[in-house]
């Protein structure tokens, strides 16, 4: 032991001496921007939940990222690169540099997600971080990327805050948000269920739940609905029976479940168990609404989702060219259709690469400038714009419902309506998004 | 006027009357033995002295101060130490540390946030603990972990721990139980010398009559929760009440 220590000491002293003698060896970060790629490759950081409740979504996101990298480097069939309206991407990497990637586990905890992102930036030299499957994590990592001077391309994050009060100049979101869910759903709900409805909300008791509930309540109330009650449910709830039971005699005829993931599966299961769907209240059929749907979760909820309305960012059964190309290359590689989480992360990767090409640099400020106000098409959502004011993508939103007669285990949702962009658009200073400040872009220099 | 005066103490557990009108007077500087058949209430009585139990009625006065409702550590701080029937020692600590702890308690009181001194630089404590270990003949084993010692050694260690505090009153609950003959002899010698040197008052609960009669200067006999006789040792032998109480259980 002592031998080892002594040898270690000698080595250290020698190196320290060398360092003092040749101060030029010490380099502080004075490059033009954080992690400017120097060799023939560029490193992207894919930060997704690999453990915890959203691990399946994380796994699907990772598949999409790998597919995107393959396409960017010229492998595979090119996927949506062929249908993308911008033709800058040539399949030779980004700006001629081969795309490499590192992966990390967010554990769906802001602390762990930031640790993972930091290690990508500090250790692996990642020039862009992307991923995440919950808003808390997305906002936390977005803040980190702003400080570190790298671009953050948000994955699945639905809270208004991501591009509202917590928006950052270095952060970009392709996914839709709570406000858009409300704005897209409300007209459909009105058309199907009528104007005169009493809604009972069960809301996950944390930031995302609150903004989601606020958005839906506002949108439905504008259509004449009445919000009977809004009950906050603890995140850790596994059995929602005690929250669902009071709905029966509350006089409400619609139950809105502002839940996501396991919460949504459990609350929906409880609601169906209590026979809510078979009830007739106020001479109307009792209905359940799940504003934010995801196919993976719908699958977890099984039979219970049949006929239940909700909204999603994208669904594989769309028939535009972009979607078809993506579903084909994803499906052929992995054997099943991609989820919306996979779609948004794939698109974000392409958008980032394309922005680098157009900006001619990896410098976050250049990339951000190229993304701001960028209008594109062919990526599965129709014409889309990255709004410069808040870095939120504006595009059509899908209203879906649980399919009555699924033909396969992936075929659980059907698209009911594609709500056009104009209906879900809002002013950047809308009260639900106010209070934030994009700030200036940070390149880390 | 005794150092410990017990007046009309009653204690019952549910319906069982463990102690009934117990009166006891332990004189300062004497060795006082409490004997009696199993279940007579000896240990219950001892527990009432150290704050483990609180009598239902009656008084326990130590040096004119009531011990009732006072916490065990406070009773110790006024000068009452106890040796248990099965040795209560700090079995994961070394023998030396075992003896240092009561020395600290004696010097620093019930609580001192003495977090920055080194135990090793507390000279007075160390000297005192060493002396004590010499007295009980354990100085060779000072660095042993207490749990690895023999039962007899553990008892001696516990006695050393109690004596190192120089208590005014030492309560001994069967100090020689389960000891080999030689160990018993040496323990008796130890207690005698200590008592002569330091004039510590002792109250002993004991089954071994040999030990009782070689140590005690006064004896109380407890039966069915009451003191039936209290007298000098020579008068206890052959006392009819005592015989009756033991019913030949022990050779009195």
């Amino acid at each position, binding site marked *: 032991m002592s031998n080892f220590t002594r040898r270690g000491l000698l080595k*250290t002293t020698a190196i320290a001496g060398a360092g003092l003698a040749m101060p030029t060896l*010490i380099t502080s970060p004075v490059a033009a921007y954080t992690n400017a790629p120097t060799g023939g490759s560029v490193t992207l950081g894919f930060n997704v939940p690999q453990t915890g409740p959203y691990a399946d979504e*994380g796994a699907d996101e990772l598949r999409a990222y790998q597919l995107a990298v393959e396409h960017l480097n010229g492998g595979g069939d090119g996927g949506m690169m062929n249908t993308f309206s911008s033709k800058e991407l040539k399949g030779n990497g980004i700006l001629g540099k081969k795309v490499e990637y590192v992966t990390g586990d967010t554990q769906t905890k802001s602390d*762990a997600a930031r640790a*993972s992102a930091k*290690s990508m930036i500090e250790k692996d030299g990642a020039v862009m971080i992307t991923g995440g499957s919950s808003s808390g994590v997305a*906002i936390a990592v977005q*803040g980190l990327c702003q400080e570190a001077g790298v671009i953050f391309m948000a994955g699945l994050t639905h809270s208004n805050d991501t591009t509202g009060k917590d928006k950052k100049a270095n952060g970009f979101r392709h996914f839709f948000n709570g406000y858009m869910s409300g704005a897209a759903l409300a007209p459909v709900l009105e058309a199907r269920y009528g104007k005169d409805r009493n809604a009972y909300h069960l809301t996950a008791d944390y930031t995302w739940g609150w903004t989601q509930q606020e958005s839906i309540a506002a949108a439905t109330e504008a259509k004449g609905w009445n919000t009977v009650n809004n009950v906050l449910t603890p995140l850790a709830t596994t059995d929602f029976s005690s929250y669902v039971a009071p709905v029966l005699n509350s006089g409400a005829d619609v139950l809105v479940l502002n839940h996501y993931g396991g919460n949504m599966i459990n609350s929906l299961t409880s609601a169906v168990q209590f026979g809510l769907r078979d009830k007739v209240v106020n001479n109307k059929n009792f209905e359940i609404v799940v504003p934010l749907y995801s196919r993976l979760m719908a699958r977890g909820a099984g039979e219970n989702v049949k006929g239940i309305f909700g909204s999603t960012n994208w669904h594989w059964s769309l028939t535009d060219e972009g979607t078809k190309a993506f579903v084909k290359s994803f499906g052929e590689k992995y054997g099943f259709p991609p989820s919306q989480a996979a779609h948004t992360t794939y698109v974000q990767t392409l958008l980032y690469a394309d922005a680098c090409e157009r900006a001619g640099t990896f410098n976050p400020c250049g990339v951000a400038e190229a993304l701001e106000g960028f209008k594109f098409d062919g990526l599965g959502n129709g014409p889309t714009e990255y709004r410069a004011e808040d870095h939120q993508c504006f595009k059509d939103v899908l209203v879906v419902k649980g399919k009555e007669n699924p033909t396969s285990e992936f075929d659980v949702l059907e698209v009911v309506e594609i709500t056009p962009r104009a209906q879900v658009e809002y002013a950047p200073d809308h009260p639900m998004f106010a209070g934030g400040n994009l700030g200036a872009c940070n390149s880390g220099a | 006027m005794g150092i410990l005066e017990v007046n009309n103490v009653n204690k019952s557990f549910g319906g069982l009357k463990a102690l009934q009108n117990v009166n006891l007077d332990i004189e300062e500087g004497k060795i006082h033995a409490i004997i009696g058949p199993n279940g007579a209430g000896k240990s219950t009585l001892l527990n009432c002295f150290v704050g483990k139990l609180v009598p239902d009625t009656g008084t326990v006065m130590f040096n004119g101060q009531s011990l009732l409702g006072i916490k065990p550590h406070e009773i*110790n701080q006024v000068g009452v130490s106890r040796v248990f029937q099965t040795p209560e020692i700090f079995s994961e600590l070394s023998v030396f540390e075992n003896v240092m702890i009561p020395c600290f308690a004696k010097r620093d009181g019930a609580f001192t946030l003495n977090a920055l001194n080194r135990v090793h630089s507390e000279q007075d404590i160390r000297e005192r603990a060493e002396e004590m270990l010499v007295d009980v003949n354990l100085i060779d084993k000072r660095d042993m972990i207490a749990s690895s010692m023999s039962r007899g050694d553990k008892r001696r260690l516990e006695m050393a721990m109690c004596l190192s*505090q120089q208590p005014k009153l030492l309560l001994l609950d069967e100090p020689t139980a389960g000891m080999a003959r030689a160990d018993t002899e040496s323990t008796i010698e130890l207690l005698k010398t200590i008592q002569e040197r330091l004039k510590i008052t002792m109250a002993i609960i004991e089954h071994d009559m040999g030990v009782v009669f070689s140590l005690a200067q006064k004896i109380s006999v407890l039966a069915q929760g009451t003191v039936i006789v209290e007298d000098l040792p020579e008068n206890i032998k052959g006392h009819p009440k005592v015989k009756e109480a033991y019913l030949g259980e022990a050779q009195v």
Partner: protein
Amino acid sequence: MKSLAKSDKRTLLFVIFIAIAAPFLLNPFPEGSAMAQFNAGYPDLMQRFAYFGVLAIGFNILFGLTGYLSFGHAAFLGVGSYSAVWMFKLLGMNIIPGLILSVIVAGIFSLLIGYISLRRSGIYFSILTLAFAQMSFAMAYSVLTPLTNGETGLQVYADDPQVFMNENSIAVPHLFGLKMQDTFTLDIGPWAFQFNIGYYICALFLIAAFYMSLRIFRSPFGLMLRAIKTNQTRLNYTGINTRPYTLAAFVISGMYAGLAGGLMASMDPLAGAERMQWTASGEIVLMTILGGAGTLIGPVLGAGFIKYFENIFSKINETVLHGWFAFLPDGLENAIVWVLHFFVGKGWHLTLGLLFMAIVIFLPGGLMEGAQRIGNWWKNRRAKGKTSSAKTTPAE
């Protein structure tokens, strides 16, 4: 230093050496080599080693010495972090006020919780602390959002008051101008060693925390704490009031946790509620037991061990594995990668679980026992070497 025994001095010097040389020791593999994946010498992870080390050292003062198993220590870590971030928001980005407040607030908080919880012992005490911590977490995540920013975590916004700051002030955490995020890279051949200011600040606190714990271990106070663990009854009958001792230990370890939380927030100014959850408390317990409860260095090792796995193993994906085994024939390569991919990347939890079991089964005293065994083996080997060829071994 004067007040330490020789062996303790050596331990302390060892810790100081490790702390200073960490950027070298943790970066043994050249950049770009396959093994570089295992390098841990980057600022964030080194900082984590240091402040989780502080946390574990503090926990060990309670658990290792008194045996009271608190399952709610993460709560103190959390309030420490929140206090520090609030100081950043209200005053400015200098870390000193934040650290001071985090220690004070955690101290007060642990005094309250400790005062109540220490009325019980054993598992009843554990559950009481767990209950308090879970309540803190649940409230921080939901109702206390105005104070904690709930799910997202408390962070510094540009429009915060920050009364001590003007336009020219540094906008990132700093110590009188030394920015926590500043890193100097020393390139030697293919190696790149990173020296980060934040890490060295944390290391300084780690050394100070270690020194303090060394003093406590060797003090009469520490002796009393150990006595509480082995026999509380005897201690009571020896005239010692055990409650103030346990409470003092609880508060001291709570303040350690608060300091760790403050450092955590200083290195990365965001305080998430999850760091108060029972899993976080459990992690502290695991760190301590894994390293060796009651030993001086053990808990630090345990903390490093868990954080290393969390941050290094979770990042090894199949592409990396294929990179490592590319030299093998394809079939064999795929087979090996297929087996290994269960244990790394998304399977890092599995590895961690298996290692927990393996360590506690084979090394009952934790990692410290492992270190001891290696030490003994080494000594024996050297002793043998000495007898066979006395000339070659230099004197001590």
